[in-house]
């Protein structure tokens, strides 16, 4: 093939690659991005079933229910509204009532959200209140300061 033709082919190939990449990105930025809401931001009338979203808040006290070793029910709240969540699987280690959490999943009906992923937050702003006997035992508090 002549030099000119080869160069043309090359430029054409490059353009095709760039174009397909751009299309791929545009498509995915619409489809594969999940929106984040707080419980009070979820308008009951606007719920789209089976659309993947994320909800963040904290686990409502006294709402956690262990149905089996791998099936759980709890509520996510932001003190203004709460959402009932079901989850099958293994909960993250830091997950507990009163602790922050972000869940990803979709509504299966207007009232129940089925989470496929649960992320728990480590609360670094407040040190745990009861560091009781353990610290006392190790003698940290026995030394005289002066």
């Amino acid at each position, binding site marked *: 093939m002549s030099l*000119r033709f080869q160069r043309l082919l090359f430029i054409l190939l490059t353009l095709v690659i760039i174009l397909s990449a751009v299309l791929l990105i545009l498509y995915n930025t619409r489809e594969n991005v999940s929106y984040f809401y707080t419980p009070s931001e979820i308008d009951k009338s606007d719920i789209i079933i089976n659309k993947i979203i994320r909800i963040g808040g904290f686990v409502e006290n006294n709402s956690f229910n262990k149905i089996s070793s791998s099936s759980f029910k709890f509520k996510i709240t*932001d003190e203004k509204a709460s959402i009932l969540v079901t989850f099958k699987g293994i909960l993250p280690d830091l997950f507990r009532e009163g602790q922050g959490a972000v869940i990803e999943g979709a509504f299966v009906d207007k009232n129940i959200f089925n989470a496929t992923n649960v992320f728990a937050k480590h609360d670094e702003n*407040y040190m745990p209140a009861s560091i009781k006997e353990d610290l006392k035992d190790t003698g940290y508090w026995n030394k005289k300061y002066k």
Partner: protein
Amino acid sequence: MAWSDNNDLFWFNSSYKKMNRIIILTPLIILLIICFFSLTYLLSGKDPNKPPSALLNKNVPSFESTSLYDTKEIIRTTDIKNRKTLINFFASWCSPCKIEHPLFFEIGKKYPELYLLGFNHKDPTSDAKKYLEDDGNPYDFVGVDADGLIALEFGVFGLPETYLINEEGKIIFKFMGPITKDVLKNEIEPLL
């Protein structure tokens, strides 16, 4: 190997130059866009760690403490319900405590409805009394925490430490170390 000698060589060269300029400017333009958005985001003070409206509050731990001045007077957690309380852990032997001490007078004067509760931590009562006599007592109540158990309940790691409790009995602020004017202005006062 050069391009074939043709008329399109000229056309290609000039549009090549224009394209060249555009291509070289692109990274700078992208840079400006990124910096603009990042700066806006930072300055708006949004915190990605907190979903926009959730605030995590913890209940103040339950405590019971005798007054430094009157062993018959006792203060309990229930006593500070329904009023905003500033709790400060201090001791006569704690030098940084002396630094923040004058600020509590200011706070007391500026916010008379705020209840100032001081816990005297692992301190002989005579030393504590002398310290408060010499430097003044800004607290509404001074509770004794002789064995440090109250501090343990709060999770205190060292002195001084200060907590702000709201009317519902939830801890809305905690600070380790001596309070400064900045901390007072920027972090405590907005909550009062």
